[in-house]
């Protein structure tokens, strides 16, 4: 498989995560990229590739203009909403491993709380599609106008199939808020919750999602620097090798309004494909890793991805979680930064920076003896680890 083991993440950067950054998304992007390059010991003059999401609000020319990047060989955008996050790592790996680029920077910056509201209902006139995320035309006139409402239609199917309740989903919130409480970079630093708090929070979409099942709306920027493994060894930080990164875009699949690809929505089939491909490339199963950074837009996604990525069997996520497997000392510690629910929601990218810190051994809530970290955002998965 082209790229596997031939590229490394050598720099990570992020701004603070807030509800009102007080500056433009472009500035957040530029600050995060500069921080990531400083972390790697590289300069903007070294950068010859830029990757972001189709949904990102900043411009490649604008960002290059801030940083003084002299010449880009590649600038590309990845579809699929926040599921693009781990997919960007796949594309950056491919670009450097194939020799197209030497140093690729990935960025994502958003003022999704202060400038617009990511979780609010969308009104008519919005774009009809979300880059493979949701074909809104089919949802908006019926009142399914927010990510939570799209997610809930799938989550309800899962709940019904396996007898899972909203209180079960709350276990994930409580866990991630526990981690955030001891992570100074988290918005919810020092603010753990109980299951009672979760159950007392208001309904967002009944009967699946309460307020505390939802990720945050956050302002912030995150960036990664990726280069070839030989060049990575000369960088400032201990390189974190991309042992493998894969994606899957299946026929008729939409990211969050995923209603048409399969008749049974209680299992995330796309995750099966990602797991199979990743194991083929790396020789490792996701459950063989020591940390699981899994995209938590809403708590049911953790249940469904745990099952699809093979941490446990169909319908077993509830017991897997109750048995303590996602604790820091458990079999598969989940997002020790607090995830999107506890730390902040920069569309998956702050889960990747935490994965890198875990592999380096520098995280706020460090898991012991980390060899491999699993990164997952539904349609994309990667396994990274120290060189």
């Amino acid at each position, binding site marked *: 498989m082209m790229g596997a083991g031939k590229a490394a993440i050598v720099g990570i950067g992020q701004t603070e995560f807030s509800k009102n950054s007080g500056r433009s998304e472009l500035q957040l992007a530029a600050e995060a990229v500069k921080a990531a390059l400083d972390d790697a010991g590289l300069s903007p003059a070294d950068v010859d590739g830029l990757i972001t999401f189709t949904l990102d609000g900043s411009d490649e020319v604008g960002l290059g203009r801030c940083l003084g990047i002299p010449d880009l060989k590649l600038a590309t955008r990845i579809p699929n909403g926040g599921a693009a996050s781990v997919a960007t790592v796949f594309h950056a790996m491919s670009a450097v491993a194939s020799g197209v680029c030497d140093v690729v920077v990935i960025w994502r910056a958003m003022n999704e709380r202060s400038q617009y509201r990511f979780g609010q209902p969308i009104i*008519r006139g919005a774009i009809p599609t979300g880059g493979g995320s949701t074909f809104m035309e089919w949802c908006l006139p019926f009142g399914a106008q927010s990510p939570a409402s799209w997610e809930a239609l799938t989550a309800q199917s899962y709940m019904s199939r396996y007898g899972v309740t909203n209180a079960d989903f709350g276990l994930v919130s409580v866990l991630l808020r526990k981690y955030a409480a001891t992570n100074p970079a988290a918005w919810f630093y020092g603010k753990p919750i109980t299951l009672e708090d979760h159950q007392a929070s208001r309904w967002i979409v009944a009967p699946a999602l309460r*307020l505390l099942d939802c990720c945050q709306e956050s302002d912030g920027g995150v960036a990664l620097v990726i280069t070839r493994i030989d060049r990575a060894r000369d960088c400032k930080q201990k390189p974190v090798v991309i042992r493998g990164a894969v994606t899957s875009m299946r026929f008729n699949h939409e990211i969050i309004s995923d209603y048409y690809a399969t008749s049974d929505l209680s299992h995330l089939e796309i995750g099966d494909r990602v797991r199979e491909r990743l194991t083929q490339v790396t020789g490792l199963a996701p459950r063989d890793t020591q940390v699981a950074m899994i995209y938590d837009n809403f708590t049911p996604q953790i249940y469904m991805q745990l099952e699809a990525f093979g941490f446990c069997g169909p319908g077993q996520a509830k017991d897997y979680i109750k048995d303590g497997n996602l604790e820091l000392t458990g079999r598969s510690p989940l997002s020790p930064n607090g995830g999107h629910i506890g730390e902040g929601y920069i569309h998956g990218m702050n889960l990747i920076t935490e994965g890198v810190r875990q592999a380096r051994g520098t995280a706020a809530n460090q898991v012991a003896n980390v060899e491999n970290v699993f990164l997952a955002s539904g349609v994309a998965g990667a396994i990274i680890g120290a060189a």
Partner: protein
Amino acid sequence: MADNETTIQRQEPVATPDSEFFWEGASRGELLIEQCDACKTLWHPPRPMCPKCHATRMVPARMSGRGVVYSWAMPIHPFPHGFATPPIVALIDLAEGPRVVSNVVGIDPRKMREGLAVTVEFEPTAGGKAVPVFRPVAGQEKTP
């Protein structure tokens, strides 16, 4: 409990050239699903080429309007635009096969369940068009 009836503030669909037939059909009181004229396969959401035989002549086919609820959800906060009370959003598996996003009307949310048999009707939108919604077949809503 009162029906989850919507007002005529319901959002107008944003049609594309490939989907216009669906919304125009609904405004005439017809539930239309795209059918490949060559191989007769039904597709939803509509698309300009049949992924099975690659024909590009796609024609609207009228559905019976019968279906069953696959899953459902009730957006409560933030309140969706165009509704006076929280709507019941549902995935409906049509008798002919395709799955559509729609609403279930005329039922107490506490009685919502998967497998509920429903039949189509049409509700107006703010701009004078209409969208297909579904109502439980009489007697069905009492089933536990």
